[in-house]
Protein backbone atom coordinates (compact mmCIF):
# COMPACT_ATOMS: atom_id res chain seq x y z
CA UNK A 1 0.00 0.00 0.00
CA UNK A 2 2.81 2.37 0.96
CA UNK A 3 4.30 2.24 -2.50
CA UNK A 4 1.10 3.68 -3.95
CA UNK A 5 1.15 6.72 -1.65
CA UNK A 6 3.23 8.95 -3.99
CA UNK A 7 0.97 8.04 -6.91
CA UNK A 8 -2.08 9.06 -4.87
CA UNK A 9 -0.45 12.34 -3.74
CA UNK A 10 0.67 13.29 -7.26
CA UNK A 11 -2.70 12.35 -8.74
CA UNK A 12 -4.54 14.40 -6.13
CA UNK A 13 -2.34 17.45 -6.79
CA UNK A 14 -2.84 17.10 -10.56
CA UNK A 15 -6.60 16.91 -10.07
CA UNK A 16 -6.67 19.88 -7.69
CA UNK A 17 -4.52 21.98 -10.01
CA UNK A 18 -6.61 21.18 -13.07
CA UNK A 19 -9.90 21.87 -11.33
CA UNK A 20 -8.54 25.05 -9.69
CA UNK A 21 -7.33 26.30 -13.07
CA UNK A 22 -10.71 25.51 -14.61
CA UNK A 23 -12.59 27.37 -11.89
CA UNK A 24 -10.25 30.36 -12.13
CA UNK A 25 -10.66 30.42 -15.90
CA UNK A 26 -14.43 30.46 -15.60
CA UNK A 27 -14.32 33.22 -13.00
CA UNK A 28 -11.89 35.45 -14.90
CA UNK A 29 -13.00 34.75 -18.44
CA UNK A 30 -13.61 38.03 -20.25
CA UNK A 31 -17.27 38.20 -21.07
CA UNK A 32 -17.73 40.30 -24.20
CA UNK A 33 -18.80 43.79 -23.23
CA UNK A 34 -22.36 44.76 -23.90
CA UNK A 35 -21.41 47.25 -26.56
CA UNK A 36 -24.05 48.80 -28.66
CA UNK A 37 -22.96 49.78 -32.14
CA UNK A 38 -21.16 53.07 -31.82
CA UNK A 39 -21.90 54.59 -35.17
CA UNK A 40 -25.60 55.11 -34.93
CA UNK A 41 -25.45 58.78 -33.98
CA UNK A 42 -27.50 60.93 -36.36
CA UNK A 43 -24.41 62.91 -37.36
CA UNK A 44 -22.38 59.78 -37.97
CA UNK A 45 -19.95 60.54 -35.17
CA UNK A 46 -18.49 57.48 -33.54
CA UNK A 47 -18.97 56.87 -29.88
CA UNK A 48 -18.39 53.83 -27.76
CA UNK A 49 -21.32 52.89 -25.64
CA UNK A 50 -22.36 50.51 -22.93
CA UNK A 51 -25.96 49.61 -22.28
CA UNK A 52 -28.93 49.22 -24.62
CA UNK A 53 -29.04 51.34 -27.78
CA UNK A 54 -32.69 52.18 -27.09
CA UNK A 55 -32.09 53.09 -23.45
CA UNK A 56 -34.39 55.76 -22.03
CA UNK A 57 -31.47 57.59 -20.44
CA UNK A 58 -28.22 58.42 -22.18
CA UNK A 59 -25.19 59.71 -20.35
CA UNK A 60 -22.54 61.03 -22.67
CA UNK A 61 -19.04 61.62 -21.36
CA UNK A 62 -16.29 63.66 -22.97
CA UNK A 63 -13.16 62.34 -21.37
CA UNK A 64 -9.39 62.57 -21.41
CA UNK A 65 -7.38 59.54 -20.31
CA UNK A 66 -4.79 61.70 -18.62
CA UNK A 67 -7.33 63.62 -16.58
CA UNK A 68 -7.43 62.36 -12.97
CA UNK A 69 -11.11 63.20 -12.33
CA UNK A 70 -12.02 61.20 -15.47
CA UNK A 71 -10.04 58.29 -14.04
CA UNK A 72 -11.82 58.63 -10.71
CA UNK A 73 -15.21 58.53 -12.46
CA UNK A 74 -14.48 55.48 -14.63
CA UNK A 75 -15.45 52.79 -12.14
CA UNK A 76 -18.48 54.63 -10.68
CA UNK A 77 -19.79 55.06 -14.23
CA UNK A 78 -19.38 51.34 -14.87
CA UNK A 79 -21.25 50.66 -11.67
CA UNK A 80 -24.10 52.92 -12.81
CA UNK A 81 -24.37 50.97 -16.08
CA UNK A 82 -24.58 47.77 -14.03
CA UNK A 83 -27.12 49.24 -11.62
CA UNK A 84 -29.41 50.98 -14.10
CA UNK A 85 -30.48 48.74 -17.01
CA UNK A 86 -32.20 51.74 -18.63
CA UNK A 87 -28.94 53.67 -18.86
CA UNK A 88 -26.66 53.94 -21.84
CA UNK A 89 -23.19 55.35 -21.33
CA UNK A 90 -21.34 56.88 -24.26
CA UNK A 91 -17.66 57.76 -24.12
CA UNK A 92 -16.16 60.32 -26.47
CA UNK A 93 -12.55 61.35 -26.74
CA UNK A 94 -11.66 64.80 -25.67
CA UNK A 95 -7.88 64.78 -25.18
CA UNK A 96 -6.85 68.16 -23.83
CA UNK A 97 -3.80 69.83 -25.34
CA UNK A 98 -2.40 70.45 -21.87
CA UNK A 99 -2.06 66.69 -21.35
CA UNK A 100 0.88 65.54 -23.44
CA UNK A 101 -0.06 61.86 -23.47
CA UNK A 102 -3.83 62.16 -23.69
CA UNK A 103 -3.89 61.96 -27.47
CA UNK A 104 -1.71 58.86 -27.68
CA UNK A 105 -3.85 57.23 -24.98
CA UNK A 106 -7.01 58.03 -26.92
CA UNK A 107 -5.33 56.46 -29.94
CA UNK A 108 -4.58 53.33 -27.93
CA UNK A 109 -8.20 53.00 -26.85
CA UNK A 110 -9.51 53.58 -30.37
CA UNK A 111 -7.00 51.11 -31.84
CA UNK A 112 -8.14 48.52 -29.29
CA UNK A 113 -11.70 49.38 -30.31
CA UNK A 114 -10.89 48.34 -33.87
CA UNK A 115 -10.27 44.88 -32.41
CA UNK A 116 -13.47 45.07 -30.33
CA UNK A 117 -11.66 45.66 -27.03
CA UNK A 118 -12.29 49.38 -26.61
CA UNK A 119 -13.77 49.21 -23.11
CA UNK A 120 -11.10 46.86 -21.84
CA UNK A 121 -8.39 49.29 -22.96
CA UNK A 122 -10.44 52.28 -21.73
CA UNK A 123 -10.69 50.73 -18.26
CA UNK A 124 -7.05 49.71 -18.24
CA UNK A 125 -5.87 53.20 -19.25
CA UNK A 126 -7.83 54.75 -16.42
CA UNK A 127 -6.76 52.13 -13.88
CA UNK A 128 -3.10 52.47 -14.83
CA UNK A 129 -3.19 56.23 -15.34
CA UNK A 130 -0.60 56.78 -12.63
CA UNK A 131 1.81 54.39 -14.37
CA UNK A 132 1.70 55.26 -18.07
CA UNK A 133 1.61 58.99 -17.53
CA UNK A 134 5.14 58.78 -16.13
CA UNK A 135 6.48 55.82 -18.13
CA UNK A 136 9.65 56.61 -20.10
CA UNK A 137 8.33 54.89 -23.24
CA UNK A 138 4.57 55.13 -23.30
CA UNK A 139 4.17 53.52 -26.73
CA UNK A 140 6.03 50.43 -25.56
CA UNK A 141 3.83 50.22 -22.50
CA UNK A 142 0.64 50.57 -24.54
CA UNK A 143 1.83 47.77 -26.81
CA UNK A 144 2.34 45.67 -23.68
CA UNK A 145 -1.21 46.54 -22.58
CA UNK A 146 -2.44 45.43 -26.01
CA UNK A 147 -0.55 42.15 -25.68
CA UNK A 148 -1.98 41.54 -22.23
CA UNK A 149 -5.45 42.14 -23.65
CA UNK A 150 -4.57 39.54 -26.29
CA UNK A 151 -4.82 41.96 -29.18
CA UNK A 152 -2.91 41.62 -32.42
CA UNK A 153 -0.07 43.95 -31.37
CA UNK A 154 1.26 44.66 -34.88
CA UNK A 155 -2.17 45.68 -36.05
CA UNK A 156 -2.73 47.68 -32.86
CA UNK A 157 0.47 49.67 -33.41
CA UNK A 158 -0.42 50.39 -37.03
CA UNK A 159 -3.99 51.35 -36.13
CA UNK A 160 -2.80 53.77 -33.47
CA UNK A 161 -1.30 56.02 -36.13
CA UNK A 162 -3.91 55.31 -38.80
CA UNK A 163 -6.22 57.83 -40.37
CA UNK A 164 -9.23 55.87 -39.12
CA UNK A 165 -8.24 56.41 -35.51
CA UNK A 166 -7.24 60.03 -36.11
CA UNK A 167 -10.60 60.73 -37.74
CA UNK A 168 -12.50 59.13 -34.86
CA UNK A 169 -10.73 61.28 -32.31
CA UNK A 170 -11.06 64.45 -34.34
CA UNK A 171 -14.76 63.73 -34.90
CA UNK A 172 -15.28 63.42 -31.15
CA UNK A 173 -13.40 66.67 -30.60
CA UNK A 174 -15.51 68.45 -33.21
CA UNK A 175 -18.66 67.19 -31.55
CA UNK A 176 -17.35 68.38 -28.19
CA UNK A 177 -16.88 71.87 -29.61
CA UNK A 178 -20.36 71.74 -31.12
CA UNK A 179 -22.11 70.74 -27.89
CA UNK A 180 -20.05 73.12 -25.80
CA UNK A 181 -17.90 70.69 -23.82
CA UNK A 182 -14.88 72.60 -22.57
CA UNK A 183 -13.56 70.58 -19.64
CA UNK A 184 -12.98 66.96 -18.86
CA UNK A 185 -14.96 65.20 -17.83
CA UNK A 186 -18.01 66.86 -19.37
CA UNK A 187 -21.29 65.02 -19.06
CA UNK A 188 -24.52 65.30 -20.94
CA UNK A 189 -27.58 63.56 -19.56
CA UNK A 190 -30.14 63.06 -22.31
CA UNK A 191 -28.35 65.79 -24.27
CA UNK A 192 -28.51 68.28 -21.40
CA UNK A 193 -25.19 69.45 -20.04
CA UNK A 194 -24.58 68.66 -16.41
CA UNK A 195 -23.09 71.75 -14.79
CA UNK A 196 -19.61 71.38 -13.38
CA UNK A 197 -21.02 72.19 -9.93
CA UNK A 198 -23.20 69.07 -10.11
CA UNK A 199 -20.34 66.74 -11.01
CA UNK A 200 -18.90 64.20 -8.64
CA UNK A 201 -19.85 60.60 -8.16
CA UNK A 202 -22.77 61.13 -5.78
CA UNK A 203 -24.35 64.03 -7.66
CA UNK A 204 -24.02 62.33 -11.02
CA UNK A 205 -25.49 59.11 -9.71
CA UNK A 206 -28.38 61.00 -8.17
CA UNK A 207 -29.05 62.79 -11.46
CA UNK A 208 -28.97 59.51 -13.38
CA UNK A 209 -31.27 57.89 -10.85
CA UNK A 210 -33.81 60.66 -11.19
CA UNK A 211 -33.64 60.44 -15.01
CA UNK A 212 -34.02 56.67 -14.94
CA UNK A 213 -37.07 56.96 -12.70
CA UNK A 214 -38.64 59.30 -15.21
CA UNK A 215 -38.37 62.58 -13.39
CA UNK A 216 -36.49 65.52 -14.90
CA UNK A 217 -33.01 65.97 -13.46
CA UNK A 218 -32.43 68.99 -11.22
Amino acid sequence: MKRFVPFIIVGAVALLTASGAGLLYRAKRQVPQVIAPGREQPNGVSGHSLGPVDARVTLEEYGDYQCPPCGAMAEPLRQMVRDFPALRLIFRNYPLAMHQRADVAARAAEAAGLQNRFWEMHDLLFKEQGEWTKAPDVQKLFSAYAAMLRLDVDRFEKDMVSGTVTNRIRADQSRAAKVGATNTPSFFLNDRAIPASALGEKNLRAAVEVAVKGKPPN
Partner: protein
Amino acid sequence: MESSPDTSTPAAASRLNVILHVLTAVIALGGLAEATYLSVLFFTGETAVCGGSSGCFQVLGSVYAHIGGMPVAAFGALAYFGVFTFATFAASGYPKARRLLVLTVGAMFLFTLWLLGVQAFLLHSFCRYCLISAALVFLLTGLTVAAPPSAASR
Protein backbone atom coordinates in the same frame (compact mmCIF):
# COMPACT_ATOMS: atom_id res chain seq x y z
CA MET B 1 30.75 26.43 15.71
CA GLU B 2 28.41 25.40 12.94
CA SER B 3 27.26 21.87 12.80
CA SER B 4 26.31 20.14 9.57
CA PRO B 5 23.71 17.38 9.48
CA ASP B 6 25.09 13.97 10.19
CA THR B 7 24.92 12.10 6.90
CA SER B 8 27.59 9.64 7.83
CA THR B 9 25.16 6.79 8.43
CA PRO B 10 22.76 5.53 5.79
CA ALA B 11 19.81 6.06 8.15
CA ALA B 12 20.70 9.72 8.79
CA ALA B 13 21.30 10.36 5.09
CA SER B 14 17.97 8.77 4.27
CA ARG B 15 16.15 10.90 6.88
CA LEU B 16 17.78 14.08 5.54
CA ASN B 17 16.86 13.01 2.02
CA VAL B 18 13.22 12.64 2.93
CA ILE B 19 13.13 16.03 4.69
CA LEU B 20 14.81 17.85 1.79
CA HIS B 21 12.63 16.19 -0.81
CA VAL B 22 9.46 16.96 1.12
CA LEU B 23 10.61 20.59 1.36
CA THR B 24 11.31 20.56 -2.36
CA ALA B 25 7.83 19.23 -3.07
CA VAL B 26 6.21 21.90 -0.88
CA ILE B 27 8.14 24.71 -2.60
CA ALA B 28 7.28 23.26 -6.00
CA LEU B 29 3.60 23.39 -5.01
CA GLY B 30 3.97 27.13 -4.41
CA GLY B 31 5.56 27.56 -7.83
CA LEU B 32 2.87 25.40 -9.41
CA ALA B 33 0.13 27.59 -7.92
CA GLU B 34 1.76 30.79 -9.13
CA ALA B 35 2.52 29.51 -12.63
CA THR B 36 -0.98 28.05 -13.02
CA TYR B 37 -2.51 31.36 -11.93
CA LEU B 38 -0.44 33.31 -14.49
CA SER B 39 -1.19 30.80 -17.24
CA VAL B 40 -4.93 30.99 -16.70
CA LEU B 41 -4.88 34.80 -16.65
CA PHE B 42 -2.91 34.80 -19.89
CA PHE B 43 -5.71 32.88 -21.58
CA THR B 44 -8.46 35.07 -20.12
CA GLY B 45 -6.76 38.36 -21.06
CA GLU B 46 -7.13 39.56 -17.47
CA THR B 47 -4.89 42.56 -16.78
CA ALA B 48 -5.55 43.16 -13.09
CA VAL B 49 -2.72 40.72 -12.39
CA CYS B 50 -0.22 43.49 -13.24
CA GLY B 51 -2.20 46.32 -11.67
CA GLY B 52 0.01 49.23 -10.66
CA SER B 53 3.21 47.81 -12.12
CA SER B 54 4.30 48.92 -15.57
CA GLY B 55 7.29 46.55 -15.28
CA CYS B 56 4.93 43.61 -14.93
CA PHE B 57 2.99 44.71 -18.03
CA GLN B 58 6.18 45.15 -20.02
CA VAL B 59 7.44 41.69 -19.12
CA LEU B 60 4.20 39.71 -19.31
CA GLY B 61 3.12 41.67 -22.38
CA SER B 62 6.43 41.08 -24.18
CA VAL B 63 7.22 38.59 -26.92
CA TYR B 64 9.32 36.67 -24.39
CA ALA B 65 6.25 35.89 -22.27
CA HIS B 66 4.95 33.26 -24.65
CA ILE B 67 6.32 30.56 -26.91
CA GLY B 68 4.23 29.44 -29.86
CA GLY B 69 1.04 30.89 -28.41
CA MET B 70 1.58 29.25 -25.03
CA PRO B 71 2.52 31.37 -22.02
CA VAL B 72 5.96 30.70 -20.56
CA ALA B 73 4.13 30.34 -17.24
CA ALA B 74 2.39 27.22 -18.58
CA PHE B 75 5.78 25.59 -19.21
CA GLY B 76 6.72 26.72 -15.72
CA ALA B 77 3.62 25.05 -14.31
CA LEU B 78 4.55 21.80 -16.06
CA ALA B 79 8.11 22.04 -14.75
CA TYR B 80 6.95 22.73 -11.18
CA PHE B 81 4.54 19.80 -11.41
CA GLY B 82 7.44 17.66 -12.60
CA VAL B 83 9.56 18.78 -9.66
CA PHE B 84 6.70 18.06 -7.26
CA THR B 85 6.20 14.62 -8.75
CA PHE B 86 9.89 13.65 -8.74
CA ALA B 87 10.46 15.04 -5.23
CA THR B 88 7.45 13.12 -3.91
CA PHE B 89 8.70 9.90 -5.47
CA ALA B 90 12.27 10.56 -4.35
CA ALA B 91 11.05 11.12 -0.77
CA SER B 92 9.24 7.78 -1.02
CA GLY B 93 12.44 5.99 -1.97
CA TYR B 94 12.22 5.76 -5.75
CA PRO B 95 15.87 6.07 -6.78
CA LYS B 96 15.35 7.12 -10.40
CA ALA B 97 13.15 10.01 -9.32
CA ARG B 98 16.13 11.75 -7.78
CA ARG B 99 17.95 11.79 -11.14
CA LEU B 100 14.91 13.18 -12.94
CA LEU B 101 14.53 15.79 -10.19
CA VAL B 102 18.12 16.97 -10.65
CA LEU B 103 17.65 17.20 -14.43
CA THR B 104 14.38 19.14 -14.16
CA VAL B 105 15.64 21.56 -11.52
CA GLY B 106 18.87 22.07 -13.48
CA ALA B 107 16.91 22.95 -16.62
CA MET B 108 14.67 25.30 -14.63
CA PHE B 109 17.71 26.98 -13.10
CA LEU B 110 19.25 27.65 -16.51
CA PHE B 111 15.96 28.87 -17.97
CA THR B 112 15.47 31.15 -14.97
CA LEU B 113 18.91 32.68 -15.52
CA TRP B 114 17.98 33.32 -19.15
CA LEU B 115 14.66 34.91 -18.15
CA LEU B 116 16.37 37.14 -15.60
CA GLY B 117 18.85 38.18 -18.31
CA VAL B 118 15.99 39.00 -20.68
CA GLN B 119 14.32 41.16 -18.02
CA ALA B 120 17.53 42.92 -17.05
CA PHE B 121 19.18 43.47 -20.42
CA LEU B 122 16.48 43.32 -23.08
CA LEU B 123 13.29 44.55 -21.43
CA HIS B 124 14.88 46.68 -18.69
CA SER B 125 11.86 45.80 -16.56
CA PHE B 126 11.16 43.21 -13.92
CA CYS B 127 7.96 41.38 -13.18
CA ARG B 128 7.19 40.59 -9.55
CA TYR B 129 5.81 37.15 -10.35
CA CYS B 130 8.91 36.28 -12.37
CA LEU B 131 11.13 37.33 -9.49
CA ILE B 132 9.13 35.23 -7.04
CA SER B 133 9.42 32.29 -9.40
CA ALA B 134 13.17 32.88 -9.78
CA ALA B 135 13.53 32.87 -5.99
CA LEU B 136 11.61 29.58 -5.79
CA VAL B 137 13.80 28.01 -8.47
CA PHE B 138 16.97 29.11 -6.66
CA LEU B 139 15.57 27.58 -3.47
CA LEU B 140 14.77 24.36 -5.30
CA THR B 141 18.27 24.30 -6.77
CA GLY B 142 19.81 24.76 -3.32
CA LEU B 143 17.70 21.98 -1.85
CA THR B 144 18.46 19.64 -4.73
CA VAL B 145 22.18 20.27 -4.45
CA ALA B 146 22.02 19.83 -0.66
CA ALA B 147 20.16 16.51 -0.81
CA PRO B 148 22.69 13.67 -0.52
CA PRO B 149 22.43 11.02 -3.21
CA SER B 150 20.39 8.12 -1.87
CA ALA B 151 22.10 4.83 -1.22
CA ALA B 152 20.38 3.28 -4.18
CA SER B 153 21.67 5.85 -6.61
CA ARG B 154 25.21 6.02 -5.34
